[in-house]
């Protein structure tokens, strides 16, 4: 697999301080064969050379259809999965090179909210213990009584009654559990939170509440989010900038409004065209740009531009040339030669 040019070409803008820098991140999962000695017969190229930056205080959206590698990107940043290649530089420190102890200290600053509120809480622990445990382990609040007080405070901040501290997760609803997940993430006073499909599993009315909560918390605690999602309307509402992923690569990255009003990559255009308009007459009259075919296998992605097999604008050179991200407008990066 040749290294794409985009690896070193980092889209950037001189606004806030850079908090997180992802450079040429690759995560290939080996498919192994053999009984005693495992050898890799192929690789699932879940993330295949992506680069981006997140600045302090901003919310970066990461969108794409399922299987495009957006969650894997989040897991690599959290060091839950070891990246195959590339650097993850958080506040000047490369997370993949530091020791386990240093990483654990770093984890106070980077937290995560998971998709499924039913499996992200340990069913054998009380809510209060779930929220208090990180504070206890990291010595943030060594005093047990103060810890309890802070658990109550966090529950209140997240819109829950402090009495929930004595309950078990199975006694709560999905939305309440997701608020507990948010409270746990906040317990270590992080500055950066990865929301991995944090609202996708909730029904729409609860989604709106949790999104409002995330917005409030962002202001109150000056948080930076990496918001991984597939719901474009949520992303537009919440994010300052949006990166669109397809088959392990970033195909477009721009300011939120710019991307939604003026999508340049054929994939993004198709993706936005798929969002229904809530007016049946407009929806029926509107021209739909539908992407044909299935998403190719990440085990054996197409050569050249990964999207050329489904792209309505593809030309001959798309089958051989890997497009790099180019800044076509200020702050608007597109990986397409024809855009």
């Amino acid at each position, binding site marked *: 697999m040749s290294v794409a040019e985009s690896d070193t070409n980092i889209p950037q803008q001189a606004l806030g301080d850079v908090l997180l820098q992802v450079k040429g991140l690759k995560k290939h999962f080996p498919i192994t064969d053999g009984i005693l000695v495992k050898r890799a017969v192929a690789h699932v190229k879940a993330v295949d050379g992506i680069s981006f930056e997140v600045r302090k205080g901003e919310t970066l959206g990461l969108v794409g259809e399922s299987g495009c590698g957006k969650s894997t990107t989040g*897991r690599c940043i*959290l060091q*839950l999965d070891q990246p195959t290649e590339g650097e993850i530089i958080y506040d000047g420190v490369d997370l993949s090179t530091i020791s386990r102890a240093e*990483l*654990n*200290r*770093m*984890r*106070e600053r*980077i*937290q*995560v909210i*998971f*998709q*499924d509120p039913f*499996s*992200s*809480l*340990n*069913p*054998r*622990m009380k809510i209060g213990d779930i929220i208090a*445990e*990180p504070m206890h*382990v*990291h010595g943030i609040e060594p005093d047990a009584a103060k810890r309890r007080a802070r658990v109550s405070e966090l529950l209140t901040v997240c819109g829950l009654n402090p009495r929930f501290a004595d309950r*078990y997760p199975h006694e709560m609803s999905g939305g309440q559990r997701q608020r507990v*997940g948010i409270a*746990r993430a906040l317990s*270590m006073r992080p500055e950066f939170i990865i929301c991995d499909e944090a609202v996708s599993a909730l029904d729409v009315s609860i989604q709106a509440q949790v999104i409002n909560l995330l917005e409030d918390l962002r202001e109150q605690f000056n948080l930076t989010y990496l918001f991984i999602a597939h719901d474009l309307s949520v992303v537009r509402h919440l994010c300052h900038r949006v990166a669109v992923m397809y088959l392990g690569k970033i195909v477009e990255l721009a300011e939120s409004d710019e991307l939604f009003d003026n999508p340049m990559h054929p994939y993004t255009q198709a993706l936005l065209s798929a969002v229904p308009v809530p007016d049946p007459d407009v929806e029926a009259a509107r021209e739909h740009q539908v992407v044909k075919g299935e998403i190719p296998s990440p085990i054996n992605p197409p050569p050249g531009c990964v999207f050329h097999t489904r792209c309505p604008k593809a030309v001959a050179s798309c089958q051989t040339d890997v497009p790099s991200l180019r800044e076509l407008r200020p702050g608007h990066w597109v990986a397409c030669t024809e855009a």
Partner: protein
Amino acid sequence: MVTTTVDDGSIEVTSSGRIKKFLIDFYRGHPLGAIGAGIVVVMLLAAIFADFITVYDPEQIDFESMLVPPNWAHPLGTDNYGRDILTRVIYGARTALTVGFVSAFVGSFIGLVLGVASAYFGGRFDLIFQRVMDVFLAFPLIILALAVVAVLGTGTENVIVAITIPFIPQCARVVRSSALAIREIPYVDAARACGFSDSRIILRHMVPNVMAPFLIMLTAFVGQAILLEASLSYLGLGVQEPVPAWGLMLQGGAEEYAESAPWIAIFPGLAITLGVFAFNLFGDALRDVLDPKLRSQQ
């Protein structure tokens, strides 16, 4: 003791009222299991209070009342040394339950931690560990126990070790398969993202969630251990005379006195059967109660 273990494993009981309700539900849903639990409790009480409920000394040889058939003074008769069978069966419960509980608990706890750790760390550690377990599992339980006794020698402590060792791989294997599934659940990722140590994640986040298969293994092990101890003692490789043990009593009475004084062998044999039966009934009921699929239907 046994009943509280059930309560902890199945549902989070916060008040005595719920414990009571659970026990009633358990009895209604699984009457056989409740009978098994009842026998276990009676055996436990007999073993604990053996000194108070018996009138004879289990090791006291009395040549004046040898081979006495069951009567009012000796309800289950006496053996060829004049020792009271009832007394020895009751004290034998103490030996059987000590060996049974200690080896089942120690073996399954070691297996629990090793199995979860193997699943958590995965990769090469898991591969090597599982192959070592395969080697142990290749031997039948009794052969492995015999081998350990052959190395360590006989006696109650060595019997416990001999029975504990074969239990470790059995429990580790079952627990590992449950732990592998739990390893993929996001709350383990959440714990890792919070920067917790491996031992904390294994002991606090994974071990409590594999309790259902673990408790089932545990109760099955107690019954198995009682049977193994009796087998080893019967073969003369376990508990040694004059300590009262059911297997040993069978050995002393079975061949020579099978016709002239059958009570010597019948009653310890019944005790073994009843003990193993009770633990198995209880374990089966426990499996039904703790099976999450059955539980969600209730």
